[in-house]
């Protein structure tokens, strides 16, 4: 019964989303608060329906109900409970249901929390959100239904891809999808603003919390994905410009640009057209990601099963949804009021430059992602665009952006004193250059680019702290005043500071890890040694392990440095009989911010050898921890900004200040 209630609730969610569109649309046309309220009620009800459907599917996974085709195809009775739960969103159908849950959830959130929005803007936003929900729910019900039943269920399920049976990946999709779909509200608000003909400072303030929420969740989602790729795939890297990685990165870049341009619109009423454009582009890139991952045009460890029919349907959804949005933009944007003027040296100009660089960076990533696909479709020739392309195109743009970041918050609105800002950042610049030169002089082997990266990271952190010190007059010597100023800083300012510092921490980690990573691989028999920089690894033993749903070989190695044992890595190589797949479980020894990363490869019975040998690969990844901590700090900054009462969702009126 629960399965079928799930199926019914999903369809009810679809019909209620359609009801939401009709009621909210009619509310706007007739200027009826009653119809608008009903539309909001439909948004809440649609979310309730989809949430019940989602819970029913999760129940089917937990109890291993193989009469549900999706469960039979993606679960197994021997799978641990966590991964049975995560199996709910581990397949194409389940992930679409998660997408719809997030979409209707954000629709309900707008209905509940948008009390501070003007009635017309809110009604059109709720209607647009309902339209998006209708389209995606219709796709889910008719082309990707997770509740399709089997009359003759198999005895056992086919299990979830073992690479996905991992704690980080179990929580990665909910964050990622919440981020992707959080940007749908921004899209809906942009469409509503164009319909209403009002993109002004107030609108920018209403957009920012949704953009911040989407951006922060997306940051965590992408970081979890990168962390999973780092320790689960066993290739020693964390980002490889894989098209699916790029698919999640592009909306993030656009959302970052949006957050900055919305500030200009909010404070100065300027860049309104551009901000609306970015708001539409952010969710369009989210939908592009959904299409790329599910259409079968990509071959990736992240991609769902190849299915061109569904891909075409998703492409149609992408084309119609984004196309309608941009047509509306083309029609209405020329009528938007121009904003305030500003000088070439001003905070507005810095933010415009920030936007140009981020947009250009997104364009390079888009080109690098789509060009191989387009070329293959046209010529049949497959090419791969990898790190060399992105290093040459994306990296210079980001370098320019990083150079700009610390200066931005120090510049005044309208017209700024460039010389004054340069003076205030002089110390940070000096420290950054000193750090880069010191690294070049002291660290062997000498890596010029990595040292430049260190300088950039230190510049970002130092410059951001300089701005904080400036605001709090930390160098004036009056600590009571500094403390008062620091505690008086709006949370939005703290959020920005943390986000910029987080970026600096990430840059440090990425540059040092890439520059000074050491790699070694050797086939070892028991007792064999592997030299990795200053470390020596000895393979002590390899033993069989019976996992809950896998068989594994677990190696025990000893890592020694200067005659002293540092740690005992225990990497595994697992075989999952249900899917006939093999995975590597990497062993990571954390030494400060550094990682000693060990992978156990396949066992080989070498010809003529009496004992078996194992391929052991090891990496020394210096400062690798910073790569993942940096984005967490950034996301934390986003959440702290979100808690700023100026942006708080649902804030209607503020109590009058006492005279």
């Amino acid at each position, binding site marked *: 019964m629960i399965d079928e209630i799930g199926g019914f609730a999903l369809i009810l969610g679809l019909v209620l989303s359609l009801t939401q569109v009709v009621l909210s649309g009619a509310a706007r046309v007739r200027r009826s608060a009653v119809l608008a309220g009903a539309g909001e009620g*439909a948004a809440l009800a649609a979310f309730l329906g989809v949430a019940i459907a989602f819970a029913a599917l999760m129940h089917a996974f937990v109890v291993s109900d193989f009469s549900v085709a999706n469960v039979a195809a993606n679960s197994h009775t021997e799978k641990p409970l966590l991964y049975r739960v995560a199996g709910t969103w581990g397949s194409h159908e389940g992930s679409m249901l998660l997408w719809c849950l997030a979409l209707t959830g954000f629709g309900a959130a707008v209905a509940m929390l948008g009390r*501070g929005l003007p009635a017309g803007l809110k009604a059109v936003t709720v209607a647009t959100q309902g339209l998006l929900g209708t389209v995606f729910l219709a796709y889910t*019900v008719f082309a990707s239904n997770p509740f399709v039943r089997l009359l003759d269920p198999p005895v056992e399920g086919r299990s979830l891809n073992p690479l996905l049976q991992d704690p980080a990946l179990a929580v990665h999709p909910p964050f990622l999808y919440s981020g992707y779909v959080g940007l749908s509200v921004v899209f809906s608000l942009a469409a509503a603003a164009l319909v209403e003909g009002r993109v002004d400072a107030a609108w920018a303030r209403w957009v920012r919390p949704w953009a911040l929420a989407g951006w922060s969740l997306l940051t965590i989602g992408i970081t979890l994905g990168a962390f999973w790729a780092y320790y689960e795939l066993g290739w020693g890297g964390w980002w490889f410009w894989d098209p699916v990685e790029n698919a999640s990165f592009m909306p993030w870049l656009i959302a970052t640009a949006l957050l900055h341009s919305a500030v200009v619109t909010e404070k100065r009423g300027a860049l309104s057209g551009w901000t609306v454009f970015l708001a539409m582009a952010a969710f369009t890139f989210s939908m592009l990601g959904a299409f790329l991952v599910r259409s079968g045009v990509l071959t990736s460890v992240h991609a769902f099963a190849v299915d061109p029919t569904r891909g075409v349907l998703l492409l149609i959804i992408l084309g119609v949804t984004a196309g309608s949005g941009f047509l509306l933009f083309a029609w209405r944007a020329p009528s938007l009021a121009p904003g305030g003027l500003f000088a070439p040296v001003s905070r507005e100009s810095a933010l415009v430059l920030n936007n140009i660089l981020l947009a250009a960076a997104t364009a390079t990533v888009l080109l690098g992602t789509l060009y191989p696909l387009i070329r293959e479709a046209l010529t049949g020739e497959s090419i791969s665009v990898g790190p060399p392309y992105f290093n040459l195109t994306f990296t210079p743009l980001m370098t320019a952006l990083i150079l700009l970041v610390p200066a931005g918050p120090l510049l005044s609105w309208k017209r700024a004193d460039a010389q004054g800002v340069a003076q205030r950042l002089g110390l940070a610049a000096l420290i950054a250059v000193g750090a880069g030169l010191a690294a070049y002089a002291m660290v062997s082997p000498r890596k010029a680019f990595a040292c430049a990266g260190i300088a950039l990271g230190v510049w970002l952190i130092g410059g951001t702290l300089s701005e904080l010190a400036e605001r709090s007059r930390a160098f004036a010597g009056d600590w009571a005043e500094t403390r008062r100023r620091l505690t008086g800083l709006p949370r939005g300012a703290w959020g920005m500071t943390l986000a910029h510092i987080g970026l600096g921490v990430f840059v440090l980690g990425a540059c040092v890890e890439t520059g000074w990573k050491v790699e070694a691989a050797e086939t070892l028999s028991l007792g064999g040694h592997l030299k990795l920089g200053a470390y020596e690894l000895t393979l002590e033993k390899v033993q069989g392990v019976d996992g809950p749903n896998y068989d594994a070989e677990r190696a025990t190695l000893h890592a020694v440095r200067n005659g002293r044992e540092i740690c005992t890595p225990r990497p595994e190589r697992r075989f999952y009989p249900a899917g006939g797949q093999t995975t590597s479980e990497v062993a990571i020894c954390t030494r400060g911010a550094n990682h000693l990363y060990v992978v156990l490869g396949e066992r080989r019975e070498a010809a003529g050898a009496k004992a078996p040998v194992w391929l052991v690969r090891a990496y020394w990844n210096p400062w690798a921890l910073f790569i993942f901590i940096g984005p967490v700090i950034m996301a934390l900054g986003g959440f702290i900004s979100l808690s700023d009462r100026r942006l708080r969702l649902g804030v209607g009126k503020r109590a009058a200040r006492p005279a």
Partner: protein
Amino acid sequence: MIALWVAAGVLAAATAGLVLHRAARAAANVGTTDPTLDVYRRQLTEIDDLADRGLIGEAERGAARAEASRRLLTAADATAQPWSHDAGERRPVLIAAGLAPVLALGLYLWVGSPGLPDDSFKHRLSQWRAADLQTLPPAALAAVMRQVATERPKDPDAWRYLALAESAAENTSASGRALRHAITLAPGRADLWELLGQSLVVEGGGAPSPEADNAFREALKRDPTSIAARFHLARSRVMSGDKAGGLAAWTALLADLPANDPRRPALQQAIVEARSETSAVAAAPPGGQIDMIRGMVAGLAERLKTQPDDPEGWVRLVRSYAVLGESAKRDATLAQARKRFAGQAAIQAELDAAAKTEPMK
């Protein structure tokens, strides 16, 4: 079935109630002003707050206040059309709230499977246990035996039966795991070692392996008369090239078997085949072995089509084509694998190394 309709009815009523409730609340909530003015008023207050705390200068305060005030005045001057709170609009709301569940029901009857009950694994397991075990398909029997083994974790026979059931269900890996568990419970039982050896042979596609031989040797230690262990160890010798030794062991085994033992014909057949192979292999062209290898490689290529996320499989396939001297296939497979694992430096290196393997002479 009735429970389904009751639950669906409750859900439909709850959602319709939400729509009606929000509509009624909106009708009662008369007099909401345009919140835009509040935003600009708050902006003015915030500018003053920041200036009072010394976070922005006086000049900036003045400029920002002037702009925010202009926005406030513009917004105040804008003539916003009022929204109706007329309760008369409730009629279309009622129609929508009533129509939505009906439409959902119609769609559900078209798309859903209303008569189909849930079928949790626990429920199915209890049904299988209640049924005649001999009528169960092997996979279901294995599932039942898995539950029995979990209930009797210290009983080696429960695990032995599980192993047999898993083997019948062609789940050789699970069969081996069950036998290893049984052996940890009763390490002195030769029959378990014997079964483990046989399971490993099956898992290896019929080929002997050091692990299987080791299991048979353990069986023989505990029961020197173990027929299966003696047979397989001799077979291992035959297949590893020691045909004379293996045949001698088989002949001795044949002599020890009673005349009415049903296994005698199979053993005799094996001896005959081994003897004829000895002469046939010497005379046969090497193409036979090559064909066998080609068959295995084709099998691997087929498997990778359905299970492509297997980097080692790709490396093996590239190496196999290289060994067979099929350079076109090697290059095509290499290109395909390189694309699939684009950017994974370690795998790319292994693929390249595999492609450089010298062809078999």
